[in-house]
């Protein structure tokens, strides 16, 4: 078993996570994000939503994201093409955040391992979250921080390859 993304992400894979999150935010929700420095981030901004998605198969691990509710609602609004304050955006906020994670994981696994690798991607899980989780992720060596339309999004990934040389 070869360790690919262990407790310390390699810079190239961290870049892939960062780049893919930015691309998917833009492609699916028309939200434009830039990398942010974790050092400059202060306390968590209001209500938080956490989403995680487990990956099994050619590699195993998870991608985890946490963001303020305002951004999660903005993602839903962007995906659905409705106002951020609309009932539809509010009702679909968690679900849209889960789908955002799903699409991101799909793209990362293909880019990292090629289409020859087979994965069993578990349905993403979302939940309201708390300050502690925000702080834990922020303090992680592997954290990816994005500034998305003046909202912060944090992410981290853990992924270990289970099949030796099967990249295509």
């Amino acid at each position, binding site marked *: 078993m070869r360790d690919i993304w262990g407790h310390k992400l390699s810079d190239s894979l961290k870049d892939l996570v960062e780049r893919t999150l930015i691309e*998917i935010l833009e*492609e*699916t929700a028309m939200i434009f994000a830039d990398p942010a420095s974790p050092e400059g981030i202060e306390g968590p901004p209001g209500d938080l939503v956490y989403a995680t998605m487990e990956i099994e198969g050619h590699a195993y691990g998870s991608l985890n994201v946490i963001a303020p509710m305002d951004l999660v609602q903005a993602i*839903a609004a962007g*995906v*659905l*093409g409705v106002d951020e304050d609309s009932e*539809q955006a509010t009702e*679909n906020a968690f*679900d*849209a955040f*889960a*789908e955002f994670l*799903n*699409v991101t*994981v*799909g*793209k990362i696994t*293909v880019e990292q391992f090629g*289409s*020859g*690798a*087979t*994965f*069993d*991607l*578990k*349905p993403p899980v979302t939940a309201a979250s708390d300050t502690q989780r925000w702080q834990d992720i922020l303090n992680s060596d592997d954290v990816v921080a994005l500034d998305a339309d003046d909202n912060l999004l944090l992410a981290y990934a853990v992924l270990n390859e289970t099949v030796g040389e099967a990249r*295509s």
Partner: protein
Amino acid sequence: MNLNILVVDDSRTVRAVIKKTLRVAKIPVGELIEAENGLVGLEKASSMSIDLIFADINMPIMGGVEMIERIRADQNLNQIPIVVISTDGSDERMSRLQKCGISAHLGKPFQPQEIRDVVCEIFGDIS
């Protein structure tokens, strides 16, 4: 020709986006039926008159591959065109789905024009 379309995806956001995309792409839709997993999709396909199915792959309870294989094994349903819309595009899974005779695979995120193109490919000029 109005098409009765079954959309099978565990994300209601995706179902809403597909619904909107069909409208934007000017696909003539009769009934649009939604299902949140493969099992419900199979039940709806069995109990209603469906012209086209859009299906996700990774879903709880019953995933898209099992649903499609069961639809293809049912002589009353096996002629329904199926378009897979999924983040999962691995060669092995695509090969398995091709063997089931899916009509097309679209990756997420998709564009309205892609939806229109695959529907036109299946049903000809539908405008």
